């Protein structure tokens, strides 16, 4: 399912003459994690990592060297919906770089020996990621958003181990035939020169490709649903709480955006109370995340020293419940239209322009002139902000995810809400056996 305003092989291009550098990203729509099943979890990432592991002319090492001799850096990655190839290198070598990339696209061999190494790397990376508290916290949040399903886990050991060369090859052939967009082309070369070369790269299609599907919806919290990732020796607790917000193309995003900036930014009400006035934590933020056509999340993050969690957590809840009426919030909100109008200039950066073009065509978000943008910002009032906040801010129904010590966090949570459901989990549970 292609968004109606996207056409196959659409190019998103910005010329930038500051340096003789060309950077392009080719996105294969529908080639992402959404095509995996429980049995093949990990296949998309492994395919991406295998793509540059050898052709019939080059083994892995000589292929990497051949790109780097040209001044090029190339890689493949996946998201939930897309399979990406990115290439950045000296414009003077663009023909040789693209020839080499074409060789890979047409003749990737996915050598068996490399597959075993890539699988081992994937397994190692999955385990190593459990070492980073912030990453574990965010992963546990995903675990909640996807109800513990495949999309919310770091991966699956058994399915990674069972990936075969035939599966990788088959997956890649489907990716290769997906609908394509040239997601970014930032270069000092003229548009036509880039388009001609990109089209040559992607002309060859081998058969039916994957079909882009809508993103998987997030779970909806009923009441307070807490997950505590047990970490007995953590010096700081970390928390992220979230509830449903708006889709990226919802026009009320301006009202919500200004309100959340006044409440949860570096200079916001939340930071001022929790960090500046009380010194309970290093960070305290509220923000909207992950908004696409799927509604995003309003999220609240903090990292209290464990001695202060008992004070910070109820105060954070109180602030979420009451901030739309608080004087310190409304004073800040009154200044936000000026702030946001002043920030318009950043939208004129070439990278931002590329992103805006993409959001326009993927999500239907119009690109506004300065005058249009300022007019929309000026339409945000305390009333309009409170209206959207009253329909979005939902402190009674949140996923509340913690990284810390259960025996300390659980009693605080119970004091805040005796009906909270708490699941304590071990980090290992975020990887399927």
């Amino acid at each position: 399912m292609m968004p109606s305003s996207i056409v196959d092989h659409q190019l998103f291009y910005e010329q930038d003459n500051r340096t003789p550098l060309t950077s392009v990203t080719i996105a294969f729509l529908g080639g992402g994690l959404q095509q995996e099943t429980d049995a093949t979890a990990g296949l998309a990432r492994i395919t991406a990592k295998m793509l540059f592991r050898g052709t019939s002319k080059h083994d892995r090492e000589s292929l990497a060297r051949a790109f780097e001799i040209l001044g090029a850096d190339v890689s493949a990655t996946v998201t939930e919906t897309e399979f990406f190839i990115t290439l950045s290198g000296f414009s003077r070598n663009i023909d040789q770089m693209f020839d080499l990339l074409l060789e890979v696209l047409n003749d990737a061999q996915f050598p068996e020996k490399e597959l075993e190494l890539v699988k081992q790397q994937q397994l190692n990376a999955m385990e190593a990621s459990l070492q980073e508290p912030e990453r574990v916290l965010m992963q546990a949040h995903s675990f909640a958003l996807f109800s513990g399903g495949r999309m919310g886990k770091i991966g699956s050991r058994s399915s990674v181990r069972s990936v075969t060369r035939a599966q990788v090859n088959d997956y890649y052939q489907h990716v290769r035939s997906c609908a394509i967009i040239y997601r970014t082309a930032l270069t000092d070369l003229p548009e036509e020169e880039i388009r001609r070369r990109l089209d040559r790269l992607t002309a060859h299609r081998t058969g039916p490709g994957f079909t882009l599907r809508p993103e998987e919806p997030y779970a909806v919290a009923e009441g307070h649903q807490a997950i505590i990732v047990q970490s007995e020796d953590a010096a700081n607790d970390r928390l992220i709480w979230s509830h449903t917000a708006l889709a990226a193309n919802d026009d009320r995003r301006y009202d919500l955006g200004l309100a959340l900036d006044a409440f949860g930014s570096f200079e916001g009400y939340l930071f001022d109370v929790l960090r500046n006035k009380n010194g309970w934590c290093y960070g305290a933020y509220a923000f909207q995340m992950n908004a696409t056509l799927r509604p995003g999340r309003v999220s609240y993050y903090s990292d209290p020293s464990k001695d202060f969690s008992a004070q910070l957590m109820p105060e954070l809840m109180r602030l979420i419940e009451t901030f739309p009426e608080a004087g310190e919030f409304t004073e800040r909100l009154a200044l936000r239209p000026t702030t946001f109008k002043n920030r318009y200039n950043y939208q004129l950066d070439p990278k931002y322009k590329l992103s805006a073009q993409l959001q326009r065509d993927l999500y239907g978000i119009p690109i506004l002139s300065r005058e249009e943008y300022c007019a929309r910002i000026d339409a945000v009032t305390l009333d309009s902000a409170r209206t959207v906040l009253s329909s979005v801010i939902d402190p009674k129904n949140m996923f509340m995810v913690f990284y810390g010590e259960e025996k300390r966090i659980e009693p605080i949570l119970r004091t805040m809400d005796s009906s909270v459901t708490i699941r304590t989990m071990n980090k290992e549970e975020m990887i399927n056996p």
Partner: protein
Amino acid sequence: MTINRCDLVEEIPLVGSLTARRFRLQNGLSVAVVEDHTTPIFSYQTWYRVGSADEAPGRQGLAHLFEHMMFRKTSRRAMGVFDREVNLNGGTGLNAYTARDQTVYHFMFPADKLALAADLEADRMQNLVIDEEMFETEKGAVLAEKNRTLDDPLRALWEVLYKKAYTVHNYRYTTIGDVETIKSFTVREAEDFYRKFYAPNNALVVVVGDVNTPDVLKILDEKYGGIPSSELSSRAVTVEPPQEDDRSLTISHPKAVKPISARLWHVPNVEHRDYPALAMLGRILTSGKSAVLRERLVYSAKVTELVADAFNSRDCGMFEFLVQRVDGIPYDEVEEVFLTAVDEMAAGNVSADQIQVVKNNLQRGLYQSALSPSNLARNLGEGYIMADNLAMQFTFIERIGRVTLEDLSSVVRRYILDAKSTTGHVLPVEGAAQ
């Protein structure tokens, strides 16, 4: 040449059409300006030549805690006004960091806000007020930041390993300090620190973006010109004695899921004639996907993290080799791979392609930094701190280009193969809940 009472010190071609011009105000403030009119914004960074290495013995962490206080209040701006003015005027990326040799304050603004940016920074350079209650509250935030580092096994390893590798130099201490010392700092100490180090003749202001140089100089002279310079005493450099013995240590950490190992060798600072060859060594080993150790350790699934490079500070540097090993791979095996690769360098077994790849990766990195005003400003600031040479990062390719295979062989033998080192390991806690 003098523009608006500011002396032009040098002009430095960067990349493409971008040129940095360095000026000095009458009070000694250094100013670097790069005009880039691509987007109507600019990056404004203030680099103070003071960091944790300048702290008094036993008072580690003061530079960092003080940096936090710079966001509090001045005699002209009450608590919260600084942040609010930045925000109201479209400022973004407001933040700061403290390192061993420098403290850096940075933000970005729309192009028409230059006078405000300069006023904000000039104000806190001369009018900071350190309030007792705010000082104590800020300690709480710093302790929370300290706690974050305690949860990181790699940081825990660096903390003890650098203390072992250096015996006298202040580089042996972490920037953030330890808990008890942080709690013990007084307002008086912070005020003394401010008076001693926060002066125009100890700072560089870098402005990169959609600005006109004469306007920048006029505004900066107005805002900073009246701030008196200080009598600065240069850092009392404690010369680290040559390491005469191999040292090692092992710690365990509850958050470690795989063993992490590191080995450190003392090397000279960036201005030394041997530094480019040492940097070349590090890049041949790890820079880019075709680098020797990436092939032999990462792509062969023996390690999940790999660092091998000459890290640089103002007084002296350190060559660091660091790996996070996978289960079943002993450190000796990994180290053997590293030493074999280093032996090959010592024997002159380096191809022209490998050297070209190093140069290409450096060049591409510079090009990419030029597409971001803040990254470009950072490159200039680092040159000022490390070598009082804004062009340092941009001329490094030339210095690397002059390295011969004989140079490489010589430094590999002198600083790595024939030198003493310090090795450390951090291991998962046996039976710990992961």
